[in-house]
């Protein structure tokens, strides 16, 4: 059964829905982030981009000059008289080309480094930030949603950084430089081009707004289809058993049709863009040629910065520039969809980075300690297997309290949301070495109580004390280090069996890990694995049975050796016979520790020091097994099977 109770208890909608445009300011923040990653390299690269762009716009000037020379002397056919001038121009051009090539080679190389480096840093930032988020975040956001930050959003960002941004910069500069040259030659023709550009921009805007609308919708339908497929594939065996294949197909066709509709329309508009802009460019070209020709013939005075008169040597490069201009605008518009998607991705990533991390105002820490002759504790560096809480006080003194595992709840109230209290007036104590069991139906609040002990969630009212220290004063990391936890849904990591056990205590030796496995009763099956303790586990231990995974989780907790253990349905997937075998290990694991145990099978809680029966967030019965049976209340009914327990 999926353990997402808390998720159902407070469904908070994702703050950054897919298929939305990013608000203003995201681009600026993205650029600022990029600059902060590469404060030196990025500006240098930018300079190279500018040089490259300017130089690649420059040939128009040389073309004009050379054609002017050719134009005035081609009828004479005398090469020798003009070769010097032409070759000088060409030589200057070549020098500029060399500069441009060097700048170009440099910036493309650097961009590759910057793009990948930035993505890496961003990923690290995201991951590292995510590690610091409270567990509430993971309970209220779908895992698929969180994953898509790393896959979809980072991928769109990659396109944005590596292609769209440099391309837009280059095109922007080209547009500017070419426009200046145009103005230099002839303002009339330049204005004509401006009119053409306005048409192109309007056309581009009309089309990209439509295509991006469909593309963003496509993202939504894709997500919907993903959810549908996930549900169907998860239940694929049920579909087979009920011969429901046809129904599933029909449902799928509907969802699939929606994706198709959006994808097709989005791509249609996106595909139209280039031919449309290209041909507006062509028409512009023709108009410039016509007007240019007319001007040549009619002797209208040319208005230009250079003050040059109209001639063929102006019209020819002008035509080329028109082409270049149109091309640059095409490039920019072609990137618009990428930019919209990329910024939407960046926005979501920033939203993740802006999530409030788990706060920790605790100052009491856990230290290795030694017991002095007089019974007091003192701190020491080496591992002594004796731990103490180091408690600094306002007056500058420091006291040490031995870590024992005494946990007490005083009148604790709690709700996942302020409106709905799920635990009421919980008061209980567990003295060092005692075993406290929680029993009750789904949603009674068993797991919630354990969530409070390790401060996955903070209580609304009341107090929890650990070794007589308010747990709010204890540093969260140290508090959690003093608690071991085994959950019903076991999560294993990609790595060897040994590494997975060692996860409980990174300093544990191989021998200690094996001892822990033996304690948990896992040694037996591990040794039968193809490579024993060095067997690689992948996909959450996909090659192990659920019961075997739980045994590994128990071993992992054993190697951590904490004074307090929380067992949340730790043996629910182990059948009764195997459990009887594991029981010994479990008993060994539990001796000398304070244990909070939530169990599916009442047989496992029978020998607890205290059993709490929970109902709707309240403790309705408490006592030992015998006490509660005598009471003939809810526990008795549960025990005799008259009430459902799940």
């Amino acid at each position, binding site marked *: 059964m999926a353990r997402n109770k808390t998720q159902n208890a407070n469904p908070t909608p994702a703050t950054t829905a897919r298929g939305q445009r990013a608000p203003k300011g995201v681009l600026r923040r993205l650029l600022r982030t990029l600059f902060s990653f590469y404060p030196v390299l990025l500006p240098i690269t930018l300079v190279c981009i500018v040089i490259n762009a300017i130089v690649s716009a420059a040939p128009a000037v040389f073309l004009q000059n050379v054609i002017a020379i050719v134009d005035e002397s081609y009828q004479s056919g005398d090469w020798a008289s*003009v070769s010097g001038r032409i070759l000088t121009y060409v030589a200057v051009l070549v020098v500029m080309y060399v500069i441009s090539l060097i700048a170009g080679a440099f910036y493309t190389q650097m961009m590759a480094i910057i793009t990948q480096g930035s993505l890496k840093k961003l990923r690290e930032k995201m991951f590292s930030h995510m590690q610091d988020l409270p567990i509430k975040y993971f309970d209220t956001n779908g*895992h698929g949603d969180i994953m898509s930050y790393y896959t979809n959003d980072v991928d769109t960002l990659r396109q944005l950084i590596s292609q769209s941004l440099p391309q837009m910069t280059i095109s922007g500069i080209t547009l500017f430089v070419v426009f200046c040259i145009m103005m230099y030659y002839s303002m009339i023709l330049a204005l004509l081009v401006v009119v053409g550009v306005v048409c192109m921009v309007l056309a581009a805007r009309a089309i990209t707004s439509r295509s991006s609308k469909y593309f963003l919708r496509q993202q939504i339908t894709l997500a919907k289809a993903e959810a549908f497929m996930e549900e169907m594939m998860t239940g694929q065996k049920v579909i087979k058993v*009920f011969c429901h294949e046809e129904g599933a197909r029909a449902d799928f066709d509907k969802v699939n049709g929606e994706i198709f509709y959006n994808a097709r329309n989005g791509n249609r508009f996106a595909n139209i863009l280039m031919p449309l802009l290209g041909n507006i460019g062509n028409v512009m070209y023709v108009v410039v040629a016509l007007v240019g020709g007319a001007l040549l013939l009619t002797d209208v005075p040319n208005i230009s910065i250079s003050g040059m008169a109209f001639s063929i040597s102006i019209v020819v490069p002008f035509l080329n520039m028109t082409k270049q201009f149109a091309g640059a605008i095409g490039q920019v518009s072609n990137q618009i969809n990428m930019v919209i998607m990329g910024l939407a991705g960046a926005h979501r990533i920033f939203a993740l980075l802006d999530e409030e991390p788990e706060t920790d105002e605790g100052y009491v820490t856990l230290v290795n300690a030694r017991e002095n002759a007089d019974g007091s504790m003192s701190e020491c560096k080496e591992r002594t297997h004796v731990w103490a809480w180091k408690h600094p006080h306002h007056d500058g003194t420091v006291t040490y309290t031995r870590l024992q595992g005494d946990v007490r709840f005083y009148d604790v109230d709690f709700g996942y949301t302020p409106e709905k209290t799920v635990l009421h007036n919980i008061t209980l104590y567990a003295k060092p070495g005692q075993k406290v069991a929680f029993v009750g139906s789904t949603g009674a609040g068993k797991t919630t109580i354990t969530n409070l002990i390790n401060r996955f969630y903070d209580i609304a009212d009341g107090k929890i004390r650990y070794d007589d220290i308010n747990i709010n004063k204890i540093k969260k990391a140290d508090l959690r280090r003093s608690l071991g936890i085994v959950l019903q849904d076991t999560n294993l990591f990609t790595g060897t069996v040994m590494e997975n056990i060692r996860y409980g205590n990174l300093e544990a030796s191989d021998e200690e890990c094996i001892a822990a496995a033996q304690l948990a009763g896992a040694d037996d099956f591990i040794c039968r694995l193809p490579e024993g303790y060095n067997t690689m586990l992948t996909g959450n231990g996909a090659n192990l049975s659920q019961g075997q995974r739980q045994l590994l989780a128990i071993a992992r907790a054993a190697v951590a050796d904490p004074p307090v253990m929380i067992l949340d349905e730790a043996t629910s997937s182990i059948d009764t016979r195997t459990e009887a075998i594991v029981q010994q290990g479990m008993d060994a694991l539990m001796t000398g520790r304070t244990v909070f145990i939530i169990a599916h099978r009442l047989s496992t809680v029978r020998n607890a020091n205290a059993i709490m029966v929970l109902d709707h967030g309240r403790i309705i019965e408490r006592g030992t097994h015998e006490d509660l049976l005598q009471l003939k209340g809810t526990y008795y009914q549960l025990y005799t099977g008259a009430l459902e327990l799940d």
Partner: protein
Amino acid sequence: MIKTLARSIREYKKTAILTPLLVIVEVVLECIIPFTIANLVNEMQAGCKMDVIVQYGIQLVIMAILSLIFGVAAGNTCATASTGFARNLRKDMFYRIQDYSFENIDKFSVSSLVTRMTTDVVNVQMSFMMIIRIAIRGPLMLIFSFIMGFVMGGRLALIFLVTIPLLGIGLALVIRAAMPIFRRVFRKYDALNDSVQENVQAMRVVKSYVREDYEKKKFSAAAEDVCRDFTRAERIMALNNPMMQFCVYAGMAFVLSFGSYVVITSRGAEVAVGQMSAILTYSFQILMSLMMLSMVFVMITMSMESAERIVEVLTEKSSLTSPKDGLTSVKDGSVDFEGVSFKYSKKAERMALADVNLHIRSGEVIGILGGTGSSKSTLVQLIPRLYDVTEGCVKVGGVDVRKYDLETLRNNVAVVLQKNVLFSGTIKDNLRWGNPDATDEEMLEACKLAQADEFIQQFPAKYDTWIEQGGANVSGGQKQRLCIARALLKKPKVLILDDSTSAVDTRTDALIRQGFREFIPETTKIIIAQRVASVQDADRIIVMDGGRISDIGTHDELMERSEIYREVYTSQNKAGDSDGQE
């Protein structure tokens, strides 16, 4: 592989073929336009009249409009063809998966199937779009521009002979160097994302053991590795741009120097000024198309992996198919296992079931008990032919299950699976899985029998209550009872409950069994359970151990002779309150 994929084009074949045709026209026009302009420029230089210019202008505008029409049409057909192809691919995969047997399903993980149907299909769609549009456009553009260049520029076009091979070889080298890195890095990238997923899922464990910093370090190392490879690959790819620029520049310098020389020495006879700029346009177009081709090539190579993964799903042979002219009726609910052995895969060393002989009479109630991994579920899954036996045969109604039409068999042998699933929809929607034509009365009846009616009536919307995905809004016991009702609606001859009442309280559990006995006495009932109480009153109880039948008998017989049975019994009935249970 291409053949398999191509089969999914189907109704979009027309648009898929039309697109390149339209593109050809578009390209031809695009190549004629610079040619016409070159002539215009020459005319203008020669000092022509306005009407000539206008004539050229009209010609050009018409060409531009035609080019626009063809371009837009091509864009349209291309979008339809590629997204339609993608739609068919998704459909074919989904349909194919519906035909999978349990064995096939076990082979793929859910997330991998979903990725194949989303990301991988999108990759292939992109490639397809490029192939029918740009891959045609590129070479055509190259050839046309090349020809036009020679037609117009004469000797000037010689520069193509230098720049084309130069860029071509350069691009080929770049691709050859970068592709292996790309292929490798994409695999690493997947692994990186897998590890993020693993981390997200295991967050409670990470936080409980205070391993945040450890995880950060682990992630950093993996991210660094991915970044290094990606950077290397992208830096190689980044060489494309300067190479391209170099060739353009070389062309420019050549045309300006040698071009002017030719124009002047031939007095404009061999090549005129107009041609000079036209040849620059062509040279640019040629290099662009080479560039595009290399991009297409990269894209195709990258989507190769995706295509392979899709084909894997499409060509996966269902290991279990319905026989032609299979029997469409089942005589009765008798079940026979004759010398059955079974293993999950051919490679498996251990038999999951070994040498099982078993005869169940129609209408009998059979309990099955055994530890985890004793193959209880495996045994019953052979009856509706969810898997095929490795040796021996399973018979239902006296006939080998492989002789039945699959749908007939499965409608007559209903299984309530251990990992049962409700789907998002109303309770009625879910129940109708058992029988699409079930009337309200039939549903009510089935739910009463499964002891589900009582709690359904308590919901405000009763039978129209919406069930969340996976049945998240009903309790485990309620879910199990709904699943039983769903199976009952099939009116099966054999009903198999695979640990389907584990979350149901013992009283209700007993009521369900009592109902079975009274209302569907002729149906064979096979009940797998963890609780002895659930099987205690069965006609016979099978005790499974390590893939073999350890013993068969009534409760009393087994208490006497089966050690395993006794062990399980006592472990559940300690403290002498066994009589507290029914």
